[in-house]
């Protein structure tokens, strides 16, 4: 799965995007966040407050409880500050 990071998530993790094979037991976005957080300190730091993270699957906003299903691309970012 393609995983993208923006703003301070990108900075903390140290990459803008990556391709990862996910273990089959990851059901929801929250499961993926928990799994990523175990990779290293950068990920743990980026995801330390999951309630501040916004998520988009295939460029659509989703909740953290959303099932991953066969999502092609998931993106993590802080609350948006457009305009």
């Amino acid at each position: 799965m393609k995983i993208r990071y923006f703003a301070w998530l990108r900075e903390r993790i140290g990459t803008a995007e990556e391709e990862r094979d996910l273990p089959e037991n990851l059901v929801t976005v929250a499961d993926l966040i928990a799994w990523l957080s175990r990779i290293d300190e950068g990920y743990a730091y980026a995801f330390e407050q999951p309630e501040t993270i916004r998520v988009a699957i295939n460029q659509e906003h989703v909740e953290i409880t959303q099932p991953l299903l066969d999502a092609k691309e998931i993106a993590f970012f802080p609350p948006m500050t457009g305009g």
Partner: protein
Amino acid sequence: MSAFKVRVQEENFNCEEETKSLSANRKDIGAIVSFTGLCRDENQTLAALELEHFPGMAEKQISFYCQQAVERWPLTGLTVIHRFGKIPAGEQIVLVIACSAHRRAAFEAADFLMDFLKTKAPFWKKEHFLDGQTGGWVEAKQEDEEDTKRWQ
């Protein structure tokens, strides 16, 4: 009307040109409301804001809210331009132009779009200071979140 124009771009924009392209040779427009958002620096410390965005999703999200606006108000023209990249203090960041026969529709549509651009368009702003230091990422304001609830 169901058409609108959305552009996400690095280069600057010209409000007058965009307004003309909506209103030239037309007589059915009674009101044009334009909103220009600028890179503001009240403390004389900011050199620029660096706007990061999610290409593709930014256009999709803005178009989604433009579609909501044209369904909700009788608009005769609608343009939204949002810049990304490094924008020096004092320069333009975002433009919304709403045209309608009547002023209330034009005001409300522009106001509505700005509220949703603030909270739902995937852009993030990082501060660059005059002393060369990089600041933090601008935090989302609860106030902006509240503003979007006015439209429910």
